[in-house]
């Protein structure tokens, strides 16, 4: 499966699976990160180890090293 953190800035895709530690997963899901939801990678700041995502009209930042458990649907 494709990883969210491998998206190219500007690209969007649907979330397939949210993994990771339970409280991290729960926080993300409650902020609307659910299977089937569209996310767009807005920018990557590698020296800060951060990703900026757009989801449900809001901008959420995750550490790139911690976003390894978010998987995307592979489209056709």
């Amino acid at each position, binding site marked *: 499966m494709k990883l969210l953190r491998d998206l190219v800035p500007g690209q969007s895709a649907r979330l397939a699976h949210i993994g*990771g*530690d*339970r*409280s*991290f*997963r*729960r*926080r*993300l*899901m*409650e*902020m*609307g990160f*659910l*299977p089937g939801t569209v996310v767009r990678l*807005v*920018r990557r*700041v*590698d*020296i*800060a*180890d*951060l990703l*900026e995502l757009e989801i*449900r*009209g*809001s*901008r*959420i*930042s*995750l*550490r790139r090293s*911690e976003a390894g458990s978010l998987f995307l649907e592979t489209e056709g």
Partner: protein
Amino acid sequence: MTSSSAPGMRKSLRRPLVVLAGNPNTGKTTVFNRLTGSDAKVANYPGVTVERHTATIELSSGVVADVLDVPGSYSLSAHSREEELAIQTIAGLAPFEVPDLVVVVADATQLSRNLYMSLQILELGVPLVLAVNMADMLEARGEVLDLDAMRRELGIPVVSTAALHGRGLDELRKEIEATLNDPGRARPGGRWKSEDPALDKDLRAVVDALPAEWNSGDSGRARALAIWSLLSLEEKDELDAVPSGVRAAVASVREQAAKTGRQVDLEIIRSRYAWIDARMPAFVKRREVRPDGSPARKSSTDRVDGVLLHPVAGFAIFLLLMGIVFQSLFSWADPAIRAVEGLFAWLGSVSKTWLPDGIVDEFVEGGLIAGVGSVVVFLPQILLLFLFIGFMEDSGYMARVAFLMDRIMRAMGLHGRAFVPMLSGYACAVPAILATRTMERQRDRTLTMMVIPLMTCSARLPVYTLIIGTLFPPSRVFGFLPVQGLLMIGMYLFSTLTALLAAMVLSKTLFKGPAVPLILELPPYRMPHVPSVVRMMWLRTRSFLESAGTVILVCTVVLWALLSFPRSTGQTARFDSDRAAVEASGASAADRAERIAAIDRAEDSERLRSSYGGRLGRAIEPAIEPLGFDWKIGIGLIGAFAAREVFVSTMGVVYGVGDETDEESATLREKIRAETHADGRPVYTPLAGLSLMIFFALACQCMSTLAAVRRETKTWRWPIFLFVYMSVLAWLASFVVYQGGRWLGFS
């Protein structure tokens, strides 16, 4: 969820209670400030260091209701004590009372996520009024809200507001009033309900385990609290107040679910979002034609972030902004600080002329007025820092600070937002400690508070200036680097490195905990509501004055007494007769005045040396002798506890130079250079001076800092820890410097 009623919590026979809830960055605080009267208060929740904002609202019928603004959060689910407050205040679990009405402030541009929390509150059966804020921003995007559809589907009153511009607040007020009179209109009666048979069975098992207070005959509420428990409880959470029976029931349900491959969290959360997502097209409608007919363009936030989050430009601008904040605390606040000091010095002299000479006069001048002065003197810096923080938070820039500094600060075990408080620590630790409130987790706040006092604050400068100027030659290294300037820079570097090192060590030992993954919202940039920022600045400052101020005042008075008592009448009589002799002599008036002033100074010096503080200075001499200090410096160290710069004037009194001495005083410098031990060796060598500076850099010689930490952590444990660890560190470092220096052959 303690059984006893906490202080400050009201009991029965009360005014109606309106709770204001919502996601962070929805303009909730602006709504709070716009709705409520002038009696707003910032305090802390019992037992935790979370700000509690309360005020009252007067409705048109003359009814007055209490308003409680709960901290912004994305959900009622909780993991930490801080997050638990949301469910406690909204569900009204003891010691909090059940609110009569909850107002959810939602951001129109992020409606689905904001509605998620509203559904959680609806599940509890609390009457709810929804204020969809920032409706103007949504319209600017070419979208409109269908309030009727929302009212119909949610079954509650919905108003649209633009709190920044004061729009929609009258309607909100009317809905609040109407709902307080008739709560039924804001209870949807189960329009939203999760209907999953498997989940229903799980929930029944948890409902049966709920304590009586949670399960008070209202099946909807019990069910909602069961869902909350299922989502929130974990093996390693901080929710100590949850009964063990509930914990056991949740654990067994989760275990069963795991066996069949079900994901309970996902089921609960997805069913809420599915309900919302199905209705979003009805709630928010896109206009056929955009107002300007243009295609969607990049938002202004995107363009600004392109610069402010840029790996190079972003950091440069951030450092520039921080430079301005630092400069303002360091120098712009200075005239105000001097004015405060001048005012209290004047008040002291006025009291002197009005009160007869004697103990009352000395107490009023040296204890009371100086004590109040030492609290008020913090006002300029605290107000300024809170003003900056208010603008940074309200504009959305604070989230960018966390973004930019996350990696660097994380390497030291600190939160990205710890940067602003730590930088402020270079000016003064007291406002810096108050600024740790911008971090959500107690662990991050306390850790930051434990290292801030190591930063070189401005009160250490007079001490360094005195020592460097007195003991080190104004010569240059390599012909161009001034020794004195290098030493000063060296002290700054030393304190910065020590603080970072201390953070690393503390975060890996005392503050060790699981790494918390970062989930950081970057809200759109918005114009701050200036009256709200100014009001919060004042409320926060006032709450500091009330709580830390009293501790500082008491400490100043105690310290004054230590350094003024006991006094022997024999001593006073001796100096009085000396003075009488001078008066009787035939010398000129000017000459007489000068000699009397010298006798006064000698008397002050004598009195200080024989005071309790003076005796304490002698008593601690064996402990500080290995650091190269004598008992006179010991007295100075005790005096410096009021504030580090007091060391200079205390030394002035000890050496009979007078208490209006400053660090540039040539007389004091000569006295210090001439001071010798009993065997004729000079007391103040460059090595002893260095040892003394190291001691000042590391020791927690500041009762106001300790009072501020006590105020923020609500316990004496942390200020005591801070004092002990910094004192031990200071002693050890000075010992190593002095004894090591001697061993290497320096004197």
